[in-house]
C-alpha cells in the first residue's frame, strides 16, 4: 500500500523517508523506526488523517478501542493544525448485522484485503480517487443488497477505527479482537486446531 505514510522509517544512506510496508528488507540495512524527525512526520500525518474526515472520538463507537486514537495519543498529537474538511459522508446501515460509517474511514483497505484474501468473498473494494475514494460493496451498492457478502464480520474485526461496526453499537462499545484473524490465518500451520 504505502498510502497512509504512518510507517515511515529512516534508512541509513537514503535521505528521504521510506514507508516500511513497501520497502524490502536487505542484508546490512540500518533502519531507524523512532526518531524526533519520524515522530514529527507521524504527528503531521495523523493530523492530516483527522482533518480529512469526521473523527469525533467522544461519540464514536470505537472510542477507547481505536487504533487511530491510540496512535494519536502515543505520538503526542494534541492539536490539529490543518483545517478540518468536514466532508459529508453517509452511513450505510443497510446490512442486517453491520454498519459502515465513511466519516470514520481512513482508507487503510484492511477490510478489502481481509474480504478478498482471508474470507475469499471479494465484497469490499475501493472506488474513487484521492479525497473522493471510499470503500464500496460489490457494484457500488448498499451493503445490505450485496450478493457476495457472507456476513462473516472479518471486515468489522479488521477495522482500525469506528468505520465498520456491529449494528446497534453505542459509544465505545466496539472492542475488536484482531487475534482471531491471525488465528484463522495461522492456526493450521501452528497446528492450533489439534487438541493436545
Amino acid at each position, binding site marked *: 500500500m504505502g498510502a497512509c505514510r504512518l510507517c515511515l522509517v529512516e534508512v541509513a544512506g537514503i535521505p528521504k523517508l521510506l514507508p516500511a510496508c513497501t520497502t524490502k528488507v536487505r542484508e546490512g540495512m540500518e533502519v531507524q523506526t523512532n526518531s524526533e524527525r519520524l515522530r514529527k512526520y507521524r504527528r503531521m500525518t495523523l493530523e492530516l488523517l483527522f482533518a480529512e474526515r469526521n473523527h469525533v472520538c*467522544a*461519540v464514536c*463507537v470505537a472510542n477507547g478501542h481505536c487504533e487511530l486514537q491510540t496512535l494519536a495519543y502515543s505520538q503526542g498529537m494534541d492539536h490539529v493544525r490543518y483545517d478540518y474538511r468536514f466532508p459529508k459522508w*453517509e*452511513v450505510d*446501515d*443497510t446490512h*442486517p448485522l453491520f*454498519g459502515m460509517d465513511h466519516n470514520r474511514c481512513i482508507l487503510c483497505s484492511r477490510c478489502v484485503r481481509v474480504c478478498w484474501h482471508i474470507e475469499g468473498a471479494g465484497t469490499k473494494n475501493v472506488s474513487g480517487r484521492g479525497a473522493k475514494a471510499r470503500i464500496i460493496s460489490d457494484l457500488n451498492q448498499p451493503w*445490505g443488497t450485496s450478493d457476495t457478502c457472507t456476513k462473516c464480520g472479518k471486515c468489522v474485526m479488521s477495522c482500525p477505527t469506528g468505520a465498520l461496526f456491529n*449494528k*446497534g*453499537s*453505542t*459509544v*465505545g*462499545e466496539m472492542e475488536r479482537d484482531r487475534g482471531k484473524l491471525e488465528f484463522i490465518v495461522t492456526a493450521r500451520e501452528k497446528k492450533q486446531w489439534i487438541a493436545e
Partner: protein
Amino acid sequence: MAQRIVIDPVTRIEGHAKISIFIDDAGNVSDAEFHVVEFRGFEKFCEGRPFSEMPGITPRICGICPVSHLLTAAKAGDAIMAVNIPPAADKLRRLMNLGQMIQSHALSFFHLSAPDFLLGWDTPQAKRNVFGLIASNADLARAGIRLRQFGQEVIQILGGQKIHPAWAVPGGVRSALTEEGRDRIRAWLPEAYATTKIAFDLFKKVLETHKKEVEIFGNFPSLFMGLVDADGGWEHHGGKLRFTDSSGSIIADQLDPQKYYEYIGESVQASSYLKSPYYSPLGFPDGMYRVGPLARLNVAEQMGTPKADAELKKFKKLTRGRNAVTSSFHYHYARLIEILTSIERVEAYLDDPDMLSEDLRADAGINSLRGVGVSEAPRGTLFHDYTVDRDGLLKKVNLIVATGQNNLAMNQTVAQIARHYVRGDKIPEPMLNRVEHGIRCYDPCLSCSTHAVGQMPLHVQLIGPGGTVLHEVARG
C-alpha cells in the same frame, strides 16, 4: 416616551441570555422578553446518524444534565425497537436519574441561587456568588458542594464517569450496580439527609424574610405539566403526563407521552432561539404551562416516600386555597423536596436485588419508524422524538426541553418583577439583581434549551414604544 430595558448578559444560569423590558408611553412596564441568543443545531446535525448513537451524542448538549439526555435518548431508542426493557434496567436507569436530580438541584440551590437570598440582593455582584457563600458560611457551602458530589457519585458508580456516561442504551443499560458501588452509595446517605435538613431549615427562614419575593417572582396563574404515576403520584422516569391549572384542577390526565404532539404545540419567536411550547387545546399563548420541580409538585398528589410526603403536605399549604402553588420563587422549595424524595428512593433501591441483575439489555431491530422518549429532567419534562428510516438512520429529530417549556413563564416573571421596580427610563440596580433571580428560579439551562453552549452573562435593555433603546446595562 416608551422604552425598552435590556439585561444582557444574565449570569449564574447555564448559558447565554438577554432580557428586554418594554415600557409604554405612561412609563409603565408593558412586556418583557427573555431572549436566548445561542444556537447550536443539534436537531439538524444528528440527521443521518444511527439512532443507537443518540444516547452518546445528545448528552453532549449539556454538562449539567447529560444524564437526562442520555436516559431520554435511550428511551426513544426503546420505542423505535418497540421493546419492553428488562425490569432491572428500568430500575437502574431510575437510580441514575435520581442521582441526576440530586446533583443538579443541589447545584441550583447552593451554588447558583443561595448566594442571592443568603447574602442579600444588594450585596455587590462580585461577592454574591458561591465564593461569597464560602466566605460567609463555609460549612453550608461545603455541605451543598458535597450533596452535589453525592448525586454525581451515584452517576459515576453506575456509568463509570460523572459527566457524559455512555451507559444507557436503546433496550436497557450496559452494566448493573456492584456490591461495592452499592455500599459506597449507602455510606453517603446519612450526610445527604443531614444536608437536606439544613437546607429545609434555612429555606423556611428565607420564606419568612422574602414574602415580597414570593408575591412578585413569577406569581401568576398558568398551567403545570409533569409526569405522574398511575395513582397521580410523583414520577420521574415513566408514567403518563398530567396538566393542572392554577386552581389545582386536573385539566388533562394520563396523557400518553408518546403522543405529545397531539397536545403540545411549539411556537417560534423571532426574538429568541428558544422555542415556546404551549398546551395546544388552549392555543398560543393561553396554553402557557410551567414544568420542573414546582410543576411536578403541583401535579403530584403524593411523593411516594414518607419524609418527602410530610414536606409535600407543608408545601401544598402554600396554595392558600387555590390548590396550586403559583409563585415561581417556590421552585427552590420544590427542588428541596425533590432532593429529599430522591435520597429516599436511592436508599430504597439499594436493597433491591434487581440492582445486581445480569439481565439488563433487550435486543431488537427497527420495529417502529418513530420513537418518543420522555423523562423528567431536573428542570422539567424532556422529550426526544426521533424519526428513522428502515435502517435506523435518523431522518428527523425533535427535542423539547424544560427551559423552552418555561419560556413564556420566564417572560411573565421578568415583566412582573420589572413592574415593581422600573419607574421611568432608567434601570434601577435593585431590579437587575431581582430580575436575574427571577430567571434563576427556573434554573434555566440554555445549552439544553437551544442545544447551545457558553458562559452566562447578563444584558438588559429598556425599550421605548418606538423600539428605541432608552437604557442598557451589560455585565458579564
